[in-house]
């Protein structure tokens, strides 16, 4: 999806804001949103990232990081039918009118155990597939000029550009939105190296390269 989230190479965002001794969370709600986003055992339809990318671009830019996470988590639960918009609005109204109230407190040792296991679980790459990798280190490739309406991990600034396969890493699940009715593909994943000049032309800084990982379906043999 060519939305505002795909901002590599954009101008206009000013200087980088830096905070000394930054806390992990700037407010308690941020941490709670983080935990709910990651540890509610209900998937987000289309994926967590895609739900954020589909935000209205002006809302995306003006929302803080954990506001985006809260949006994706909440919207996903609404779409899954876990609760309704009416239930949500009633709760928001309740807490707006009772600012000293807190959510109910429930302890659950089993849920905690599951959460702690998933926190540290090693997730290996996917098993090898019938078709062997098409590319090997050293191959020249061109990143596809593709503009899918769904989620993709191929940023615009790399599309159509010539690069070199630097490394092959096993098979991994392709995060892109699959065609309707299909599962996510499992594909060879490669580390691709681009010269900055190929990406940015005359404006490139000297002596710079870019490495980025790409699934096999993002790549074309360069001609």
């Amino acid at each position, binding site marked *: 999806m060519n939305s505002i989230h795909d901002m*590599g*190479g954009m101008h206009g*965002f*000013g*200087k*980088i*804001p830096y*905070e000394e001794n*930054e806390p*992990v*969370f*700037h*407010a*308690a*709600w941020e*941490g*709670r949103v*983080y*935990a*709910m986003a990651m*540890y*509610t055992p209900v998937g987000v339809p289309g994926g967590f*990232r895609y739900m954020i990318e589909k935000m209205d671009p002006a809302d995306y*830019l003006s929302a*803080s*990081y*954990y506001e985006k996470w*809260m949006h994706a988590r*909440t919207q996903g639960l609404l779409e899954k039918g*876990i609760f309704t918009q009416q239930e*949500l609005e009633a*709760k*928001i109204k309740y*807490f707006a009118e009772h600012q000293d*109230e807190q*959510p109910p*407190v*429930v*302890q659950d040792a089993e*849920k*905690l155990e599951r959460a*702690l296991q998933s926190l540290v*679980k090693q997730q*290996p*790459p996917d098993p090898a597939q019938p078709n062997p990798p098409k590319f090997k280190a050293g191959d020249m490739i061109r990143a596809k000029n593709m503009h899918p309406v769904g989620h993709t*991990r191929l940023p615009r600034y790399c599309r159509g550009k010539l690069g070199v396969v630097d490394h092959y*890493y096993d098979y*991994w699940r392709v*995060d892109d939105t699959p065609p309707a009715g299909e599962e996510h593909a499992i594909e060879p*994943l490669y*580390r691709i190296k681009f010269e900055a000049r190929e990406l940015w032309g005359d*404006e490139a*800084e000297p*002596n*710079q*390269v*870019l*490495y*980025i990982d*790409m699934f096999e379906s993002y790549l074309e043999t360069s001609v």
Partner: protein
Amino acid sequence: MGHDHDHHHAHSSADAEIRAKALESLLIEKGLISTDVIDEIVRQYEEDIGPMNGARVVARAWSDPSYKKWLLEDGTAAIADMGYSGKEGAKMVVLENSPSTHNVVVCTLCSCYPWPVLGLPPNWYKSYAYRSRVVREPRKVLSEFGLELDESVEVRVWDSNSEIRYLVLPERPEGTDGLSADELTKLVSRDSMIGVAKL
């Protein structure tokens, strides 16, 4: 270091708190999450999972050449050997800085970051300015962080956007020969392991 683009919604963080309470309340009532899960996850990221983990990995690599070799060959396994693994660390690749090569990591599409070794990312890493600029003008960005690199140094920018996560292995500072791994750990900053600082 410039204005923060999150200012646009600064006025609504009270709203955000209310919406977060509403969400938590619904999830608990529906039996999908429990308070202790939320409390414990927050506690772990506030206290246990952060750049001190990565710093221990770096200090051990500086102190133990065979560990360093393993770390550069199989980051995932060598880092797991220190007890760090899990979400956003399924496959770890360690990037060694040297006098001739400087590595710096970003995620332009969202804010992918190696949680098990660095914890959750700082705001600047998630900022639109960093995400948009560091792939196009890394030297200029690094100079804003106070890091001026000679033109002879190759700058390698890593845009982490599949499941691979990166940890930069900074150069060991001079004059640290006699230090223990514990003492070295204290020298390793978060920023040096993202690649926006040297030590």
